[in-house]
């Protein structure tokens, strides 16, 4: 996904001379093409995330469209107060791209894990929170995020994520994207577990459970009208995300459901547990530890249906 980001932002910067790319001392060769084509619009602001967000705010105040790129955990947790005060308070159009969100940097250990980023950013007024499932969704959403009048955060994977779409999908910020239909269970997935979500749906379908799958690439704002219809149509709604069950997509849907008097369907939230992952391991291992495999998630859903 990071290659797709580098390619897409380089293309977008061609037609929009206000785009400025800030990197927090990562992606050295990733942006060679961008740097060559727009030498005065790429800045490595160093290992200084708080400063980087403030600089982005200043660039936006000065008429530019800054895009900030660094490892998700550093962009969000290190600079949270700058995001709140410098970006959200005045609602400045700055796009923050957090690479390796969730467990994308699993092997680097918990300092690099980012399973609470959606929870903390979703709470900020004026912030749009995006989680593309693959490189194609990323490309569509990046262009759309640059058209927003306020700040946005896009949590993306790292590299080699399988493609879900065959080409650039016609997705819009705030509108869930339907990948398959079914009226027993609806799986809402935000981010890179979408291929697994589709496999879970196939498993369920093989035993006669008709399962819809939607890409919830936008976690904030939620499409509440659409949720209202969905919760009347199916028996069980399942959220899947590489993020804590506290405060992510599952949390957002649960909050909405708590205030909705017509949400008949039950809700099952699948995500990472409320704990630090002390074991070393690659992303697949970490997902397994968190119960985010096709087999485990299918079983969780079957159990929920049987209750």
């Amino acid at each position, binding site marked *: 996904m990071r290659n797709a980001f580098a390619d897409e932002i380089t293309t977008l910067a061609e037609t929009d001379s206000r785009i400025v790319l800030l990197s927090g001392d990562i992606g050295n060769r990733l942006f060679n093409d961008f740097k060559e084509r727009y030498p005065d619009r790429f800045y490595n602001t160093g290992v200084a995330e708080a400063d980087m967000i403030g*600089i982005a*705010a*200043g660039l936006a105040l*000065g*008429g530019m469209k800054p895009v900030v790129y660094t490892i998700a955990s550093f962009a969000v947790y290190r600079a949270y107060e700058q995001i709140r005060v*410098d970006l959200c308070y005045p609602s400045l159009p700055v796009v923050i791209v957090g690479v390796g969100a969730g467990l994308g940097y699993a092997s680097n250990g918990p300092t690099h894990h980012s399973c609470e980023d959606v929870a903390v950013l979703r709470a900020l007024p004026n912030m749009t929170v995006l989680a593309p499932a693959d490189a194609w969704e990323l490309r569509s959403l990046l262009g759309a995020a640059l058209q927003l009048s306020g700040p946005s955060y896009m949590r993306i994977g790292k590299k080699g994520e399988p493609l879900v779409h065959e080409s650039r999908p016609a997705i819009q910020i705030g509108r869930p994207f339907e990948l398959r239909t079914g009226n027993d269970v609806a799986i809402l997935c935000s981010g890179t577990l979408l291929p697994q979500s589709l496999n879970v749906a196939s498993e369920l379908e093989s035993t006669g459970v008709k399962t819809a799958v939607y890409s919830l690439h936008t976690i904030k704002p939620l499409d509440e009208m659409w949720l209202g219809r969905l919760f009347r149509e199916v028996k069980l709604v399942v959220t899947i995300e590489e993020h804590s069950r506290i405060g992510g997509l599952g949390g957002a849907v649960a909050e909405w459901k708590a205030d909705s008097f017509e949400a008949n369907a039950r809700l099952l939230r699948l995500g990472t547990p409320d704990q630090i992952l002390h074991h070393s391991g690659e992303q697949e291992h970490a997902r397994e530890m968190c119960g985010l495999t096709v087999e485990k998630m299918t079983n969780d859903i079957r159990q929920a249906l049987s209750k």
Partner: protein
Amino acid sequence: MTASVDELHLIARRIRKTVLELSHRAGTPHLGSSLSCVEMVTAAYWGGLNLDPAFAADVSRDRFILSKGHAATTLYAALAMKGFFPESWLEDYAKSGSPLGEHPSPGTPGIEMATGSLGHGLPVGIGLAMASRIQAHDNRVCVLMSDGECNEGSVWEGALFAPSQRLNRLTVMIDYNKWQATGRSDEVTALAPLCEKWSAFGWRAVEVDGHDVVTLSQWLNAPPDPDGRPTVLVAHTVKGKGVSFMEDDNNWHYRIPSSSELARALAELQPL
């Protein structure tokens, strides 16, 4: 310099009067901090930068950021005198529903950004200076910080970065009044030698008398550093400056002047 020396002194006295009255009337703290930066704000608005409501929507305008947002009354007094908003707004300062709160809020005429949480002004000022350079604007950016603010890590992240970008149209003024909220700023952290620190970071660092409005104005009008360095004016000041019984007394970080104290203070500011 757009105002004469006499005018600059008169403006500074008028700002002091407003600052004292606002603190008394609204019962808001940070009086000592507001009084110590009066000459710096005066120099920015009348002596150095081109700050005028006529250019408020011009992206290439000169920018002044009060990073020490707790000195909001000094800024409000200047903005009202400059015509960014009616002087009558000052009467409602810090009242419920007023646009003028205890800390500056973006969206208020003349306020470039939200300050009040320290350490935000310099990085934003750097971004503004970079935006100007990208767009080939020759405007100036000035950030006023406090000495206590230099406790913040983001200040030093910015101090490291700005010289690497050769942002010589960026000027920082540090209100070095030697106090922060609860103690001497040189004792709470090892702030001194402050000017040498900035110099070592690659800035054109100059020690000035922070109450000498003429020298401050001259520095704000000085040509950009030919070596490309940003400029920092380490401005030695007295907290509570201008009122004998408030000067260098840190109780006035939080204390509110009574009616009789206000009268005594205003009497010291004559002639207005």
